[in-house]
């Protein structure tokens, strides 16, 4: 069977800015595929082309085996799309919003009822079904928007930074829901600017300035990281960092919340590193090897 989302050599520029530069990727059935990258990496452009709202300069996009540029009506009626700024009707209740989206997609009332029951099970919005959408908390609005786009039972859903500005507990809950949907066989493409969410995806593409820096399972990506990382801790992180910047280690250090990460490209090993730091009279509290994370990988590849 062909993969539900196939993107081949996609290019799109806005004036002089190459927003998407030769991106190719495929999303397999039931996958939670993450487009991970900062603002301006090209995430939204890729998504808008996929849902037929934007034409590429070149390259092909296939949705359920059909060429998106030739079948926009098919795409729009079969895909579930949650844009960055989703719109709910604030003065309609939760249930009225769900019915409205059901009606838009010509779903029969009976079928709508069934689908709503299923959606209430994991959104936990049932107790709030008569509450106005405008009176919901941020996390609940997010879940309602997700439910609305699932009313027509799409096999593939596409979400553009759904967790932006949402607190960690609601984000956690939202990702749990995505996981449940994937277990029901729904294929999910989701974008985020936050690396910690990458670990919740089955596969990710790290995007930067329109390029894919790396693409694989999150675990495989960090295991592939070629050299060891050491973490240096100090109660004067800023002065330690500025001192290290004046040494031959300058290009191998990065500031992290839990300390300074040194990526040991030349395979010096801990003993040599410690000796050099002593030679240079650089003081620190501790040094230990740590597992590289996706941010280490991103920092290395984006140079």
């Amino acid at each position, binding site marked *: 069977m062909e993969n539900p989302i196939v993107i081949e050599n996609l290019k799109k520029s806005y004036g002089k800015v190459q927003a998407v530069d030769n991106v190719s990727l495929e999303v397999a059935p039931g996958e939670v595929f993450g487009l991970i990258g900062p603002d301006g990496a090209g995430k939204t452009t890729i998504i808008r082309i996929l849902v037929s709202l934007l034409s590429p300069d070149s390259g092909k996009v296939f949705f359920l085996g059909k060429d998106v540029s030739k079948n926009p009506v098919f795409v729009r009626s079969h895909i579930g799309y949650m844009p960055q700024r989703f719109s709910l009707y604030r003065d309609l209740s939760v249930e009225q919003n769900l019915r409205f989206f059901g009606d838009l997609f010509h779903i029969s009332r009976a079928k709508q009822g069934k689908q709503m029951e299923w959606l209430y099970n994991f959104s936990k919005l049932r107790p709030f079904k008569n509450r106005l959408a405008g009176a919901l908390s941020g*996390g609940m609005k997010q879940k309602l928007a997700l439910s609305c786009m699932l009313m027509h039972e799409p096999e593939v859903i596409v979400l553009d930074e759904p967790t932006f500005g949402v607190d960690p*507990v609601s*984000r956690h809950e939202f990702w749990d829901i995505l996981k449940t949907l994937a277990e029901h066989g729904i294929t999910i493409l989701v974008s985020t600017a936050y690396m910690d969410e990458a670990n919740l995806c089955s596969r990710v593409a790290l995007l930067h300035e329109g390029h894919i820096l790396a693409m694989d399972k999150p675990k495989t990506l960090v295991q592939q990281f070629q050299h060891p990382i050491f973490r240096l801790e*100090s109660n004067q992180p800023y002065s330690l960092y500025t001192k290290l910047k004046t040494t031959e280690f300058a290009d191998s250090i990065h500031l992290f*919340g*839990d300390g300074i990460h040194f990526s040991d490209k030349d395979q010096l090993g801990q003993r040599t590193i410690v000796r050099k730091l002593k030679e240079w009279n650089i003081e620190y509290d501790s040094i230990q090897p740590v597992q590289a994370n996706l941010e280490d990988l991103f920092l290395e590849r984006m140079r």
Partner: protein
Amino acid sequence: MNRNYSDGEFAVEVSKLTRDFGHFRAVDAVSFSVEKGEIFGFLGANGAGKTTTVRMLCGLLMPSSGTAAVGGFDVYTQVEQIKNSIGYMSQSFSLYEDLTVRENIQFYGGVYGLKRKEIRRKTEELLDYLNLWDHADQLTRDLPLGWKQRMALSTAILHDPNIIFLDEPTSGVDPASRRDFWLLIYELAERGKTVFVTTHYMDEAEYCDRVSIMKQGKIVEIDKPEVLKEKYGSESMQQVFINVVSEVIGE
């Protein structure tokens, strides 16, 4: 990280601070203090009362009861002094996109009431510092997001305040720019500035000297990130936060 900053002086001192909106108690007898030169992370779920607290500390909202002093000034009676001693930068920072870099700096200098000579000096200082001379006369909209963010912080502190409030400062920037931004924050703290950060992103919490976690109007945890991680047996602040706050799921 365990940064050394303590000299026992407080930049923010809050005792039993409370704010009601009608029958709803948004902030419920909150007490805490932030030391001079500290980087303090102010965390909590949506609707926990963070914004209300910050608004009271910035002199934008009167408390219902309790006391709070910011930079030694009373939030009830010395609002103007507070506004002069704090800088504020939000996630939707307010640079003028169709002004050049230089014009933005000059504009904010004017807003903060700096004299013309000072503005000229500050402009040069800042362009040096941010390494933006080559882009001084370029429109702000054409700058990469990471540069805009550093510029927004720099303009928010043109009047040399001692306390800086940052509201989700690094949302959406790439990992390298985020590090540049945090280096800037560390540098400010080294110079004795107090940095008060609110954020939903727990990797930012890891950079703070201490964090507090708010839940339903109350501060339920306040300590160093590594102490909280140990207390909850978690490897990340993300997990600590979820453990502390998760009882409010579903509201």
